[in-house]
């Protein structure tokens, strides 16, 4: 067959493995763990490792949701405020009814509403998602302050289930949040690969026009991703509230940046249509181990912010230069 007009070639299987973002991230993670393991004695203990997994669970759950939104071609920066805001309906309803189930339900309903508003404005009214969710970020935070009068609302119900969710450990080692995060990750990995809805998300982000031609309801898919992201953020927020034992009005400030950083680091393209949840998970773990390692070395926590910033830039730069070589 004579050579075709385009000069594309198919990379070899091994080449593809190395080209994959996930491999690079996994190597980074191992390197990071190795370095900190050497630099600090208390880093490689079971206790510490499981602690990190517990801490990483929260951004991981939220990042899974955000990844769906970004793969679909949009963005959601309101998750920080939502993360803190869900504690309000949760704690208030728990205090009044004495039921964790009802409290969680209230939190999830609240999150659903927020996600629905975001989703409606972006998918149906067709406003820019950055603007909408930036606005929502501030509206929610303002509502939190308004409602709490800038004070924390303590948990008076003292329910055991509520306590266990955030603070308990399975078999006394693995924190429940980590298990929940693993379950969430598994579910959505499966959805993205084996469910039509998952494939629709990727298609819509890759090329909304083609997706429409294939009969996908682009607006509905995007709307759904916002709702899912909000619900997952709510789950993370419920766990956080459990850890704090109250609804603190400043919870979640800056959380959105952490999560966006992990998603971007994980190789999810801001342009949409590309991205793997494995990458996101690795991104979250890298940032979590980094924060923990720095803490073990007694560096002030602010260094985390600085280093995270640098990492984001490095990650995106690498991603860009790799994309251009393609």
């Amino acid at each position, binding site marked *: 067959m004579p050579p075709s007009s385009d000069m594309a070639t198919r990379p070899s299987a091994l080449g593809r493995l190395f080209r994959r973002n996930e491999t690079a991230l996994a190597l980074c993670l191992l390197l990071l763990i190795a370095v900190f393991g050497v630099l600090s004695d208390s880093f490689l203990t079971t206790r510490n490792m499981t602690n990190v997994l517990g801490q990483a669970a929260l951004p991981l759950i939220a990042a899974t949701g955000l990844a769906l939104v970004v793969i679909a071609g949009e963005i959601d920066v309101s998750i920080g405020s939502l993360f803190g805001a869900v504690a309000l309906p949760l704690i208030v309803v728990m205090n009044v009814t004495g039921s964790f189930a009802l409290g969680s339900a209230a939190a999830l309903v609240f999150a659903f509403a927020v996600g629905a508003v975001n989703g409606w404005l972006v998918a149906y009214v067709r406003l820019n998602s950055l603007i909408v969710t930036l606005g929502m970020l501030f509206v929610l935070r303002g509502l939190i302050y308004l409602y709490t009068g800038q004070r924390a609302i303590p948990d008076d119900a003292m329910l055991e289930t509520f306590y266990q969710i955030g603070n308990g450990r399975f078999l006394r080692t693995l924190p429940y949040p980590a298990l929940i995060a693993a379950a969430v990750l598994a579910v959505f990995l499966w959805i993205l690969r084996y469910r039509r809805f998952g494939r629709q998300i990727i298609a819509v982000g*890759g090329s909304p026009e083609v997706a429409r031609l294939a009969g996908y309801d682009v607006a509905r898919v995007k709307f759904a991703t916002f709702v899912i992201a909000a619900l997952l953020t709510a789950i993370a927020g419920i766990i956080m509230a459990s850890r704090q034992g109250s609804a603190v009005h400043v919870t979640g400030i800056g959380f959105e940046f952490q999560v966006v950083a992990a998603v971007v680091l994980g190789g999810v393209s801001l342009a949409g249509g590309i991205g793997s949840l494995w990458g996101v998970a690795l991104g979250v773990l890298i940032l979590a181990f980094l924060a923990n390692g720095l803490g073990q070395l007694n560096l002030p926590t602010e260094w985390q912010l600085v280093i995270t910033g640098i990492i984001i830039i490095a990650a995106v730069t690498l991603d860009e230069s790799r994309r251009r070589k393609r």
Partner: protein
Amino acid sequence: MAEAPALDMAGIGKRFPGVVALDDVHLRLAPGKVHALMGENGAGKSTLIKILAGVYRPDTGTIRIAGEQVTLQSPRDALARGIKVVFQEIALIEEFTVAENVFLGEYPVGGAGSIRWDRIRADAAALFDRIGFGVDPAARVRDLPMSQQQMVEIARALAHDARIVVMDEPTSSLTPAEVEQLFAVIRRLTSLGIAVLYVSHKLDEIFAIADTVTVLRDGRHISTRPRSEHSEDSLIHDMIGRRIEALYPRTRGPATDRDILRVENLSAPSGLKNISFHARAGEVVGFFGLMGAGRTELAKAIVGFDPLRAGRITVDGRPLAPHDTATGVALGIGLLTEDRKREGLMLDLPVVQNATLAALGKWARGPFVDFAAERRATQDYVDRFNIRTPSLDQPVRLLSGGNQQKVLIARWLMRGLKVIVVDEPTRGIDVGAKSEIFALIDELAGAGLAVVMMTSEMSELLGLSDRIMVMAGGRITAEFPVATATQEAILNAAIV
């Protein structure tokens, strides 16, 4: 016809604000035959296809599929009724595999509602066999060349039991060998009883593949005749209504001897390999090549837009700084891009700002813009070039393609160039405006510029150039003075 036609469109009319796209058009497709739809840009072909694809709804007229009257509500609906349109813009999801694209939106699911990837791969492989297409179902669309992406789209048609397959200008990105492959696949489709509507403006292809030809002009149906009843002249006559010679006026004198542009041993990461040529003042050098030959890459490289790996470019003896368009413009070389809307025009800004973009320093009082002077200069070109616009402040988005192109040419003339590189100068422009653009190019050369013209239209190439360079695979493969150039020789040189 013994059986009902596969498709029967009658009395189709479609208006857009200010424009009548289609007026009482009819089209009848017989199953198992290739029906060509021809017409110049602006004739209404794409509107008709979009109606068939369910993207537009006709204002008047009826559509019958296999005798049954239908209303096509949406692209999904059209697909469900057995109409598959393969557009020029490939409608595939690049990140997905070939197999997944074939079954996009129609995944077979298993027990738990999960997608059955194994069945998708197997079914796709079976479909590819039917059309004689050998590609790995697990290949990612992103990694495939354009010709194979088209095949995936055709396979998708089969997956939907399409009875009508529409191909919209399918060969603009294909080598002659790939065109042959495509024709083979089309013949397979017709042998399966599928009606193929082949939309093109390339005469030689029509003569090779079509059974019947319908010609549209200015939104109206001009003729429908068996291909055997047509000659090249009669087709052209139906399409443009006048003789082809009138299209390429030549008023300029012979080219000078002075080399204005010299390109030496140019190689670039974009795929250019050791290119050398020169262009003289007053000369039009036409570059021909198939898609992927590197014409646009060359155009972008010689003005400094893309980086080089090696080589030297001099304009009137002065060397160009690498990868820097600003010095190029200062030295007098500029590019009129192929994609006006994305790379040339500032769509929401007015005509006057678009026209003066390259020559901002000219009407300056210190750091300030001299508004009166720039308006005068723009008006001057609007008059000279007959640019149709209600005012100088009209956002350029609202002008027609031909007038937009004229604004861009004016932009370069205001700057004052020695060398102008034009890439596909008449893409997306209707016949009437085309001849005006040709006249302008002729005038540019007549004024002493060196014109480097990239084109894939043979008639343009032969009608305008003084010298013809042929490119293939990033190299220059042949050079002909226009007097001795023939279509066959050019095409031969264009194949790697």
